[in-house]
């Protein structure tokens, strides 16, 4: 059965995934939804990349204290990504600078890339999931 053979051949294929974060945390549900997708993907042993552009860079800013708004903080989950072998994190330089942030403001180690390199990164992926 050729169909079954085709299905079997897809097992073990590792694709390049990019999770493209472009929204600020807490004000909308986008950041949380993408983070949940990232955690799910960790279970499938794929080549996971996570990028932060535009307001997405705010997601990993240090010092988030969410007690006052009674919501769960994202920071512990982002810190835990390393434990799932998700270590390819990229921040767009222009987005960071527009918002007065520097690499020291982030809770996790990131690679800062300019917009052109971010474009190249996006285009080098097999699957891009944004939010």
């Amino acid at each position, binding site marked *: 059965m050729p169909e079954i053979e085709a299905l079997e051949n897809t097992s073990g294929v590792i694709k390049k995934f990019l999770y493209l974060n472009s929204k600020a945390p807490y*004000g*909308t549900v986008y950041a949380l939804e993408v983070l949940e997708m990232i955690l799910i993907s960790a279970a499938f042993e794929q080549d996971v990349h996570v990028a932060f552009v535009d307001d997405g860079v*705010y997601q990993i800013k240090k010092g*988030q*204290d969410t007690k*006052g708004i009674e919501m769960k903080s994202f920071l512990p989950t982002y810190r835990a990504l390393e434990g799932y072998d998700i270590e390819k994190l990229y921040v767009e330089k222009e987005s960071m600078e527009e*918002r*007065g942030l520097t690499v020291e403001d982030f809770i996790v180690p990131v690679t800062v890339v300019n917009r052109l390199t971010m474009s190249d990164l996006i285009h080098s992926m097999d699957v891009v999931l944004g939010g």
Partner: protein
Amino acid sequence: MLHTVNKSPFERNAFKACLARAKEGSVIVLFEDAVYAVTRGTTLEKIAVRAAEKFHVFVLGPDLNARGYDWGQVVEGVTVVDYDDFVDIVVTHGPVTAWL
């Protein structure tokens, strides 16, 4: 008249739309993602400083803290308030125009 804004100034036009139509001396409360409009060091800082000169600008502290900022990182002339203050402002300065 009280004006409220709750959207990021980098993603939506709500903050600028509010500033363009609020009368001098109006009260503006920034909450949720709009708190980024008055954090120091951004490309919008001058707009925020001018707004604080023309209007009474307040920003909700719990939303600032959730996003990793405190009162020391807010532009000069903007007042940080809590939820109780927000309620008092609504009672004192209504009706409300909500810029979304």
